[in-house]
């Protein structure tokens, strides 16, 4: 009896026997992953569960034993550190997407300011706004890229008093979508999926795709975590993520590919 109980407990505690893969995903990619989920589930027969947060937060959780199988980060640094910490499977890292940063004016962007590559810097220099939303630079790679962009344009220090920080890129998006900040640095992928805010359909507004030269590339890496070393579902998911079909959908959702 005792043995049987112990066995039952052991079965319950053994991860992934049921063909489930639990993916910790950076906020910017969670909408995209949800769109990919159906495909993956019908093709592989495994179940996919998402846990969303800022990359920094997910990293801290994994360091403390959070039961995730795969991390889809918004940067390359955290997956690499997990590998060094011995928490990720060596050699399982790869870049699944390159993030694209967009400066989004929800409404009332100045129309008299520059065009093309100069447009956004003209907005920032003119400064006809009260608040500019970014993701937290230490927690979220899109936040750091936003700071680097302002740094390259030489406006970071003068704008600092007007920056408001969301805990992750989804919160930064929400601050702009709800009209509390006039503009913000968000992920290109969010603008395709997000709701434009209360009572508006689609993201709308005016967007300035930030030229890639203004910040370090946002290399988004995936990594297999130690607990899922031999898990079939997790392996199948990583294979799927590299498939041509998944890649073309990722590109269509607003990412560049390595």
């Amino acid at each position: 009896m005792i043995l049987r109980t112990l066995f039952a407990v052991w079965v319950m505690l053994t991860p992934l026997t049921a063909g489930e893969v639990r993916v910790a995903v950076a906020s910017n990619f969670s909408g995209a992953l949800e769109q990919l989920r159906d495909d993956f589930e019908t093709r592989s027969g495994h179940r996919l569960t998402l846990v969303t947060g800022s990359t920094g937060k997910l990293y801290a959780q994994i360091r403390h034993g959070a039961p995730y199988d795969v991390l889809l980060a918004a940067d390359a640094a955290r997956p690499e550190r997990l590998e060094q910490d011995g928490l990720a499977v060596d050699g399982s890292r790869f870049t699944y997407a390159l993030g694209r940063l967009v400066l989004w004016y929800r409404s009332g962007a100045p129309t008299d300011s520059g065009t093309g590559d100069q447009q956004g810097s003209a907005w920032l220099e003119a400064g006809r706004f009260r608040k500019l939303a970014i993701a937290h630079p230490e927690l979220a790679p899109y936040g750091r890229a936003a700071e680097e962009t302002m740094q390259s344009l030489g406006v970071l220090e003068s704008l600092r008093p007007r920056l408001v920080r969301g805990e992750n890129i989804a919160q930064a998006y929400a601050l702009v979508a709800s009209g509390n900040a006039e503009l913000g640095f968000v992920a290109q992928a969010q603008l395709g999926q997000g709701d434009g805010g209360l009572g508006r359909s689609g993201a709308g507004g005016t967007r300035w795709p930030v030229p890639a030269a203004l910040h370090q590339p946002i290399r988004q890496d995936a990594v297999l975590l130690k607990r899922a070393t031999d898990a079939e579902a997790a392996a199948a998911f990583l294979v799927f993520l590299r498939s041509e079909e998944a890649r073309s959908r990722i590109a269509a959702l607003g990412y560049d590919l390595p």
Partner: protein
Amino acid sequence: MSWPDLAPIRLTLLLATVTTLLLLLLGTPLAWWLATTRSRLRPVIEAITALPLVLPPTVLGFYLLVMLNPEAPIGSFWVRLTGNTLTFSFAGLVVASLLYSLPFAVQPLQGAFEGLGRGPLEAAATLGAAPFDTFRSVVIPASLRGFVTAAVLSFAHTIGEFGVVLMVGGNIPGRTRVLSIAIYEHVETLRYSEAHVLSAGLLLFSFAVLLSVYALNRRARFHVR
């Protein structure tokens, strides 16, 4: 051991003080009305007052974002008045804290007023005291315990506020980054020693506050009865 930036502590204490004073000012008439009225609206107002106790802070935070944004009536009125947005500002945090801590001020006061009974009030009226005079020289001294409990609980509850501020504060150092947010940020960025210092401080402070409330209540019981 690295020491954390202490600005969040100052900000948090200021926020809690302002909130507590305003809550006593606004909560007293509300609690008095709830304790004495025979209106049919009473249960409705009581329920609304207690809502922040049961609603998750995310609900409060989300609706505040919706109501206080510069395009909404309240938000735009504030922008016209002060030139600043209500969200991401100290004033906005005060508004959020008033809502969030309202039941902690109103309920002890209402209890104290109800415990008073009609006797002393009628006696004062018979002796010719005007209503406000009665309130000042009879009600307030007799309900002092209620006032102290209300003040201490609102103060402590505001100190512990987290979810609402996370949503409407914008995490601006020196302006809206309160203690709980600073702790959260230290944990998320793996700066555990700073998180430890602030967390332990908050733990001791909260314990001291609760201990003093309970000790005070006990003493008051012995003295009054």
